[in-house]
């Protein structure tokens, strides 16, 4: 229930820079997702906020108050650990109870019981309350760990990949429930995940972490529609965005003896990016299309992902299953939708302005 400001956070492990000059600011009650590949510094950022890891430099503010020197137990943060970190000698109920009984909380017994009930039902672990962690499956343990973080009101709730090990059904239903629950509690939440679908589904704002830095911090729509650079663009979206290099001053894209006229681009343009859903695929020769060979197909329910070899490029295309049936080695024709392309400069930064 606090606003949070991270100012130039830096964390070194020996000579390794895990977090370098990370800045982030969020309002009270916001749901922030830290999105990034493994090793990007997501967990470390949470541990710095909880003071489990010590800052090398930088400042952390809760409600505009500097809390650098406040010890973990007095920060009033709640955290779900990626490794669960359950208390192995205690039952699920005692695990959930422990944060409610910490000194200074003074939560009446009836409210404690009600809170435990509430999260146990939310996470579907009500029937497991008298078991010990060793008697639970991995997914059940993860839910207990999540429950322990949600059970009490905290200034900031830190959730480190809290639903990564649940089965698909529960993962989907919990995404919505979790967002709703945290909104209802008006809890400021930091949530990490490497999965962009999860991130866009649950976040008020996404912070894309690459090499210990926030590359982009914006709403899911903005991160998807206007990725700050090529790396962000390839993390957000599945399959990843197609990136095509441009020759300096090129006005057309030549692939397999065919060429496509490019829209007018600024002179510093170095790459264009096209999302897999923005390329049309045809079984027969088509005007204004380039030729390619199907490399692999992945049907996924009502959709399919087709990878096509076109010249030196391997392009991802995502289309409805009803578009047609494609087999490996088949010749196909591709037509990008130029109105939706992303343009990046030689260093990979997004070029602002409309090119369509």
């Amino acid at each position, binding site marked *: 229930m606090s606003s949070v400001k991270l100012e130039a956070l830096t964390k070194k492990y020996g000579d390794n820079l895990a977090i370098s000059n990370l800045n982030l600011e969020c309002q009270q009650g916001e749901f922030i997702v830290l999105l990034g590949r493994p090793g990007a510094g997501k967990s470390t950022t949470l541990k710095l906020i*909880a003071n*489990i890891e010590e800052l090398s430099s930088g400042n952390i503010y809760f409600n505009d108050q500097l809390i650098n020197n406040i*010890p*973990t*137990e*007095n920060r*009033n*943060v*709640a*955290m779900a*650990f990626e*490794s*669960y*970190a*359950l*208390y*192995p*000698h205690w039952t699920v109920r005692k695990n959930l109870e*422990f*944060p409610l009984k*910490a*000194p*200074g*909380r003074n939560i009446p017994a009836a409210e404690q019981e009600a809170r435990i009930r509430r999260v146990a039902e939310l996470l579907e672990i009500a029937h497991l309350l008298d078991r*010990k*962690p*060793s008697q639970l499956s991995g997914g059940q343990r993860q839910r207990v760990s999540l429950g*322990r973080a949600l059970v009490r009101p905290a200034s900031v709730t830190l959730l480190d990949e809290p639903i990564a090990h649940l089965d698909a059904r529960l993962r989907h239903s919990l995404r919505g429930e979790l967002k709703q629950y945290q909104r209802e509690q008006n809890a400021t939440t930091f949530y990490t995940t490497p999965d962009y679908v999860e991130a866009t589904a649950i976040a008020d704002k996404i912070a894309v972490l690459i090499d210990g830095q926030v590359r982009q911090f914006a709403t899911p729509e903005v991160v998807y529609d206007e990725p700050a650079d090529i790396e962000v663009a390839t993390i957000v979206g599945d399959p990843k965005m197609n990136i095509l290099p441009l020759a300096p001053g090129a006005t057309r894209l030549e692939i397999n003896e065919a060429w496509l006229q490019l829209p007018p681009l600024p002179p510093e343009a170095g790459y264009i990016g096209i999302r897999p859903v923005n390329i049309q695929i045809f079984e027969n020769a088509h005007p204004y299309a380039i030729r390619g060979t199907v490399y692999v197909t992945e049907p996924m329910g009502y959709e399919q992902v087709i990878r096509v070899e076109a010249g030196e490029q391997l392009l991802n295309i995502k289309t409805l299953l009803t578009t047609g049936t494609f087999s490996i080695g088949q010749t196909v024709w591709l037509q990008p939708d130029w109105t939706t392309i992303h343009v990046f400069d030689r260093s990979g930064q997004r070029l602002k302005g409309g090119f369509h």
Partner: protein
Amino acid sequence: MKHLLIAPPLLFFFAISVIPLLFTLGLSVTNTSIGGSGSFIGLNNYAQLFSDQFFLRGFLNTILYVVLGVTAQYWLGLGLALLVNSMVHGKRLIRLLILLPMMIPPLIVGFVWQTLLDSRYGPVAGLFTGLHLKPVPWLTDPTLGFVSIVIVDTWQWTPFMFLLLFTGLRTLPKEPFEAARVDGASSWRIFWDHTFPMLLPASIAAILLRSIESFKLFDIVFFITGGGPGGATNTLTLLGYFTSLRSGNLGYGAAMSIILLLTVVVLATLILIVVRRLMARADKAGQQALDQFLAEPLPVKVA
């Protein structure tokens, strides 16, 4: 036929363990003395034991040595283990230093401490005189003599407790303790709610091993007070030794040994029952820690 293959170790075990035990048992129901032959006297030796003030004192002393010594060693060892475990630098060096007393043969330990505590010429007495304090009869007063033995035994064997508990601490997962801090628990509560229960398997193993060893306390007492003054610091092993080999009363000494054996077996079994109970309730992680610990060879052969 295949069972024959285990015959050699069985024979060996029989020869060095079972036969001496049966021999002692046989001896304990006779009045055999060194150099003379004895005759069967039934349970007379045992009956006599229970009215023998020396024996009863030795029996009580042995129990007290175990209870007081092991208790002191456990808490000191645990304290040291927690302290060293929380150190950032110099862990290796301090660990080595703490283990030193355990590496010294008890004979030397006894001699060193006897010299230290000598009420006329010892450096401790010198220190007291230097500070204008009254000299303390460390070894010649019955109560102080007893306390001195407990102090020396604790000095020598706290490192053993430290080693086992420190190893136990290192096998505990780190994250639950981080989680407990995040959940707002104080160091005190973290210790009692998490560290202590999770360390319980290692604690029980350490206490069991030290208790059994303590029952056989001999060398330190032998060298420091020789059981005196007036039998005030005697142990059962010491008494058995004096009765059998100094006074030559083999039958009576054998009966003492058998009583000691029975006491150890009964108490060790009781402790093991408690351990099993706790193990059945303990979580898998703790059990694995204990299994791992018991499977590892002891770093130092227990004297």
